[in-house]
């Protein structure tokens, strides 16, 4: 039973370590963390719901290698991101920059929130007005 629980624990742990598929020769922990952080912000182009860090697609492996090599050359994160966007467009970024084509992406949710807030305000005001006009305690037709 104990062996079984141990095996189960190990099995449950493994997905958290699954990113380490390449075994890249990092010089220290800080570099490894930087690599992880950067590749998590990048989208795998083959399996587009996965980050570059998580994907086991062949191209993702190549691109991880490329990111690693460029880190070794002393390029900073912005330069590496630029390298990838030059080839694969903003699509590789999970955090796309604000520009003409992405305005709706950035402010769309806010717009929907504002519409919702306006609707709620309207309904609450109306209800308050109805309550004000009818005797307190008496239910109205508009109770939904």
């Amino acid at each position, binding site marked *: 039973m104990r062996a079984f629980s141990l095996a189960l624990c190990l099995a449950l742990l493994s997905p958290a370590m699954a990113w380490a598929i390449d075994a890249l020769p990092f010089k220290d922990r800080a570099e490894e963390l930087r690599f992880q952080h950067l590749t998590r912000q990048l989208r795998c182009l083959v399996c587009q719901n996965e980050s570059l860090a998580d994907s086991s697609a062949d*191209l993702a492996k190549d691109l991880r290698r490329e990111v690693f090599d460029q880190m070794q050359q002393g390029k900073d994160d912005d330069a590496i991101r630029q390298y990838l966007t030059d080839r*694969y467009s903003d699509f590789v970024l999970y955090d796309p920059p604000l520009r003409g084509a992405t305005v709706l992406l950035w402010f769309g949710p806010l717009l929907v929130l504002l519409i919702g807030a306006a609707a709620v305000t309207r309904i609450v005001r109306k209800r308050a007005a109805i309550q004000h006009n009818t005797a307190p305690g008496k239910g109205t037709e508009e109770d939904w």
Partner: protein
Amino acid sequence: MIKRFLPLIGFALVASLLAFGISYMRNNSMNEVPSPLIGKPAPSFRLPVLNQPERFVSNADLAGKPYLLNVFASWCFACREEHPLLMAEGRSLGIPVVGFNYKDETADATRWLQQFGDPYSVVIVDRDGAIAIDFGVYGAPESFLVDGKGIIRYKQIGPITPDVLAFELKPLLASLKGAAP
């Protein structure tokens, strides 16, 4: 009275938004990564020719007239779908069709071309896919139309279909010829 129908109207709005989303996704594949390279010079490359590893082809060798760079591999299923069209119509484009053998084994690629036919004027080999990354390739097949000045004019992601050939590549080639005879 109209207030009773408000939830229904709300539902109808959401439903039509979803319907729009679905139909939009159908007509505009969101999986296609827009290429930032269109209108820009093709990345520089110098790659060995398939089965002639001592011979290299570079941008400079292809400069001067338009060419179609077709990324393919023997492991790529969709390439087989595209292949008969290249065999039948490739020549009618009137430009060199350059095969770009992507992350493939030489023996496999050679056998594949023997089996299905070789529509290419030359096949160059990118064994480790490094040049493909410069081209923004993320799958196969992909095709690039490069003009005489070395500028990428069009990128097809996925197989070239008869429609793409007739309505995209041929008109574009005609306009290229008109602009620079």
